[in-house]
Structure formats: C-alpha cells, structure tokens
C-alpha cells in the first residue's frame, strides 16, 4: 500500500514539474515571437501586460538594461541566480510584498538580448508546492484511513474466526466433561469452518457408535462372566456348609475346574475375536482346498450328528476348490457353524454342508432344517454375547458367530445367514485362490508375513 501511495506521489510530482517546464517554454516562445515582430518596445509592452498583478498569473518576468535596471516585469530586482543540474535556475522569491510574505521558490531561465538587455522568464513554484503538499496530505490521510479500515476489518474477521474456533473448543470441553452427545453447531454457510465442524461431528458420531458397541460388549462380558462366577462361588460355599466329605469335595473341585475352564474359554474366544478383527499376524494364509477342508470337518462331526439322530450330509465336488486360508482359524469358524446347526436341529433333521463356486468366490454353506433365525435377528446374532431368547438356556458363550465372522473377514470373505424354509443356511464366501492373492496384496504387510 505504501509503495502504491509513493508511486502516486511520484507520478504527480513528475507531472507537475513537467507542466512547469512546458509553461515556461511556451511563454519564452511567445515572448520571442513578440520580440522578433515588434522589437524591444513590443516586448516591454507584452511583459507589462502579462505581469499585471490583476491577471493572477504565477508567471514571473523581468527585463533589465545592461546595468540590470528593471525595464519591465513583476520582479523588483535581478535575483541571485543559481543554475541547477537540469538547466533551470532556481531562486528564492523574497518577500517583496508582491504576493504574500512567505518566501518561496521560483524556477526561471534567462536570456541576454541585443544591447545587453537581459530577460528572465520564470514561474512561481508556490502553487506547485501547494499542490504537492495537498497531494501528500491526501495520500497520507487516505493511507491512514486504509490502514485503519484494514486493521478494523482484520480484527473483525479474525474475531469471527476465533469465535468459531472458540465454539469448537467449548464443544470439545463439554464432550470431555461427559456430554458425549454434544455436537459443534453449524452456521449453515458451508464455509471451511462448517466443513471442519461437520467432519469433527461425523468423527464424534463414529466414536460414539463405537463406544456404545464397546459399552455393550463390556456390559455383556460383565453379565456373562458374573453368572458362571456366581454359580462357581455358591457351589464351593455349599460344599463347605455340607458335612465334610473328601468324595464330595473332589466332586465340587472337579466341577469348579470345569466352570473355570469355561470362563477361560470365553476369554480366549474374546481375545481371538479381537485379534482376528485387528488383522491377526498369526493368520498364515496358504493355499487350502475348501472341499477337502469341509469333508474333514464333516468326518469329525458325523458321529456327533448320528448320536443326536441327525443326518450330516456333505456335498462337494471331487475336484479341489482352492482358497487361501489359515486352516486353524478357518476350522474354528466353520466348526462353530456346524456345531450350531447340530445343536439347534431337532432329532430327525438333516444338516447339509456344501462347497460350491460362484464366479470368483468359493461358497461353503451349512444348512439345517431346524427352527432358523427370524430375518431381523440374523445380523444381530453376530454381535458378541448376543443370544437368541430361545437359545439362552442352552450351553454356549454367544461368541461363536462373532469369532466366525471376524475370521472370515480376515480372509477377505463374508459370512451371512439366510432362511432355508424351514431352517437356517450359514454361508461363508471366500475369494478363490487367484482372487485371494490380490486381496492379500492390498492388505497391510504385517498380515501377510
């Protein structure tokens, strides 16, 4: 801004100086014309006419004889001239009472005419100086005004920005103080602050959802572990109340160990789920024939089915269906589906394990003709500890399906539950080996090893 003002000043000064120069030049040309046509007398007449104070001109004239006695003009005496670098002479106009009393600078040039007559033509620079001063004043005051406006505007703008940051800060403080449902208010202007607030709000929503999930899990853990611990405690207490008997004590201790093992199994399952969800470094995905894998599991569970009066059927193609998987982890996941089917299918029913391919996916399905799961519950049973009302009384920790889903996801696959009219179909879809390699390549390095 200062540079701009300086430029304006500079341009104005140059223009003023040039105008002065041109005016004097034009005056000289005019006088020279008169002198040529009418001689010295004509010159004197013109000068006298032009230097008449009533004309209010700022031009200065002085015509003297060879002894420097004034012949005509509006200067009383020949000034002390001083030739400047630019060819002009400058002198100080003394307070000769001609116009005003203050001394000011004049610019002039002089000639010596025939007969030693000297002519001086000049211009009083008072107007120039006054103009220059006015310009400076104008520039300085407008500069000051601009500075002031800029300052005020800046303060107003930054205060508004700070106020909005402060709003975000306050919301943050409130949330930290425990008001987790608080959100940053939006102005609806869609500017950067609104977008920032939207992003932060979305982040807070996500965190709140996760926290709600976590809280539910923790509540469930507390609840699900309290009951067996309570049973364990009262069993020991009962044994102590009864008549001392080694036989009875052994019995109770044996049962207690069984309960403790159940609790440990629950913790192990929870840790396994957490690990699978985090992308377990333990998982080693290698080529695995899903058809043979399913046949092996069916072979393991076939006697269990028969014991319960169920038919366990395995339907796989003879040729291998290759996926990439960790046999240990996958067997846990699929065994769980088979165990569920065996557990909930009433005597006389059929459990069918099948392996098929569908495009780039291999599908392992465990279908039963048991009671099934209502469609609106099919997603929720994957939650940790979630158990259907009907299955509350049966054994199990409510973690099997959560673990199965975590393991299948770790393999880049999906697990879904569907109806079997009547019954339930659990379908595990895994990418076929060729596709699976692409998935693994897109996974973080530590999951591949």
């Amino acid at each position, binding site marked *: 801004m200062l540079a701009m003002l300086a430029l304006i000043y500079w341009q104005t000064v140059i223009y003023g100086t040039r105008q002065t120069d041109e005016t004097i030049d034009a005056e000289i040309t005019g006088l020279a014309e008169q002198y040529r046509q009418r001689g010295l007398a004509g010159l004197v007449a013109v000068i006298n006419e032009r230097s008449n104070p009533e004309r209010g001109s700022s031009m200065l004239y002085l015509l003297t004889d060879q002894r420097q006695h004034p012949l005509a003009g509006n200067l009383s005496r020949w000034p002390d001239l001083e030739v400047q670098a630019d060819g002009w002479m400058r002198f100080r106009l003394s307070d000769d009472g001609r116009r005003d009393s203050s001394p000011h600078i004049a610019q002039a040039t002089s000639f010596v005419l025939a007969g030693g007559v000297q002519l001086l033509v000049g211009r009083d620079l008072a107007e120039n100086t006054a103009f220059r001063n006015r310009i400076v004043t104008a520039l300085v005051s407008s500069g000051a005004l601009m500075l002031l406006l800029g300052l005020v505007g800046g303060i107003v703008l930054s205060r508004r920005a700070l106020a909005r940051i402060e709003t975000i800060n306050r919301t943050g403080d409130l949330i930290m103080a425990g008001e987790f449902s608080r959100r940053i208010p939006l102005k609806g202007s869609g500017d950067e602050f609104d977008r920032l607030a939207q992003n932060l709000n979305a982040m807070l929503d996500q965190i709140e959802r996760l926290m709600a999930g976590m809280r539910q899990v923790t509540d469930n853990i507390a609840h699900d572990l309290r009951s067996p611990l309570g049973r364990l405690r009262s069993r020991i207490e009962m044994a102590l109340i009864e008549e001392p008997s080694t036989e009875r004590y052994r019995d109770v201790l*044996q049962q207690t160990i069984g309960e403790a*093992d159940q609790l440990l199994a629950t913790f192990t399952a929870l*840790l396994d789920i957490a690990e699978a969800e985090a992308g377990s470094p333990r998982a080693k995905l290698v080529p695995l024939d899903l058809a043979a894998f399913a046949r092996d599991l069916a072979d393991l569970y076939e*006697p269990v089915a028969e014991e319960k009066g169920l038919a366990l059927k395995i339907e796989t193609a003879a040729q291998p269906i290759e996926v990439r998987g960790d046999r*240990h982890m996958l067997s846990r996941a699929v*065994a769980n589906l088979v165990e569920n089917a065996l557990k909930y299918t009433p005597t006389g029913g059929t459990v069918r394990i099948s392996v098929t391919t569908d495009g780039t996916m291999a599908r392992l399905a465990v279908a039963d003709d048991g009671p099934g799961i209502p469609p609106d519950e099919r997603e929720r049973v994957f939650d940790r500890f979630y158990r259907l009302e009907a299955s509350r009384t049966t054994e199990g920790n409510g973690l099997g399906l959560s673990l199965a889903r975590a393991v299948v996801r770790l393999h880049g696959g999906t697990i879904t539950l569907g109806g079997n009219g009547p019954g339930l179909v659990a379908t595990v879809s895994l990418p076929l080996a060729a596709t699976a390699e692409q998935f693994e390549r897109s996974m973080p390095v530590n999951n591949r090893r």
Partner: protein
Amino acid sequence: MKLLVVEDDREAAAFLVKGLKESGHTVDHAADGRDGLMLATTERFDAIILDRMLPGMDGLAIVAALRASDNHTPVLILSALDQVDDRVRGLKAGGDDYLTKPYAFSELMARIESLLRRGAGGKTETKLRVGELEIDLLARTVRRGAAEIELLPREFRLLEYLARNAGHVVTRTMLLEQVWDYHFDPQTNVIDVHISRLRQKIDKGFMKPMLHTVRGAGYCLKAA
C-alpha cells in the same frame, strides 16, 4: 525321569515343580533363560519345560541354542496365547510340543509323558501291541484276541494314537490335535463321541474294557 523347568514366574514355577514331583519326577528349576540354558547344556534331562517369555532370553532362542549344540532333549514350550506363532507350531513338527497358558496341569502332564515316550522310542514299528489288541500299521487291520475288528480310517488313526500312548492318559485336546490336526476347543463333546464309537468296537463283547475314561483328564488305553 529328570525334568528341567525354566520359568520366571515364581508361583507358576512352584506349582509346576510341585505337580511334577508329585507325579514322581525329579525336577530342576531355573528362573531365567541364561541359567536355564546353562543347566540344559551341562546336565542331562529327559525333557525340558520352557516358558516362552523369559527375562534376558527368548525361550525359542534357548531351543535353537540347544539344537545347534546337537542336544535333542524334548522341549515343551509354554506360551501366552498371542505368542503362538508359526515358529512355535514349527517346533512341534520337530518332535516338541507347545501349550498355551493358562493350561490344565493334567494336560501338561499328559503331554510331558507323551514327549518322554517319544524321546525313548522313535523306532518305526509296523505293529503295535497292547495286551490282546494287535494293530497292523501296514495292513491297517486290528485284532483283539482272535476277533478281527473293522474300523473306519478315522477310528484306526484314533486307536493308533491311543495305542502308541498305551497306559498313559491322553487328553481330548491332544487327540483333536494329533488325530485330526485341529487346534480349537470344540463346544460339543465331539471327541467323547468318537471314543464311544471306538469303544463300541473294541470293548463290546469282551469281559474287560481296554479303553478307559480318566475323569477330568482324558482317556487311556490299557491292557485288560
């Protein structure tokens, strides 16, 4: 048998030493990796029970050092769940075993006994004999006394494993791992069902049973 326990957790070590001594073994204890390695290389042990996480030295490094010096004492590695990785599983293939903490003492005992037997035997046999039970590993046939017993392939594998550990307790987990190669905890009594199937075939019609259930531990095949 002489056993070495390398375990830094005092209580766990005391529990182990007490249990093993009560089972009739001589037990030495080292509380850190360096002492453990020194004891293992200077004295002869029948088996070593080694914690994976030790101050100063990783349990696996001790095994590696032992093997490098041509010491083939069987090692049972105790590891926390999140430390069971492929290296530990790999060790198992070399004749050793691993167990995740927390473990049941009966499980540990059964595995140690099994390791000790593996260390002692090691010859490739073609026939296993337990009392009047005779298992032909080449022909895949089984006889009890004069009677030939028809077994499904999985039943044969189960009986073979029990026979190799005849007279000793094998746990359900050991059976699931060794016979089926599964490393999970079934929610159903799947192993019991397989055992009762096998029992039907080898004990039914005979006066004295050979396949026994050991309460709270597992199963045991014994000469009648």
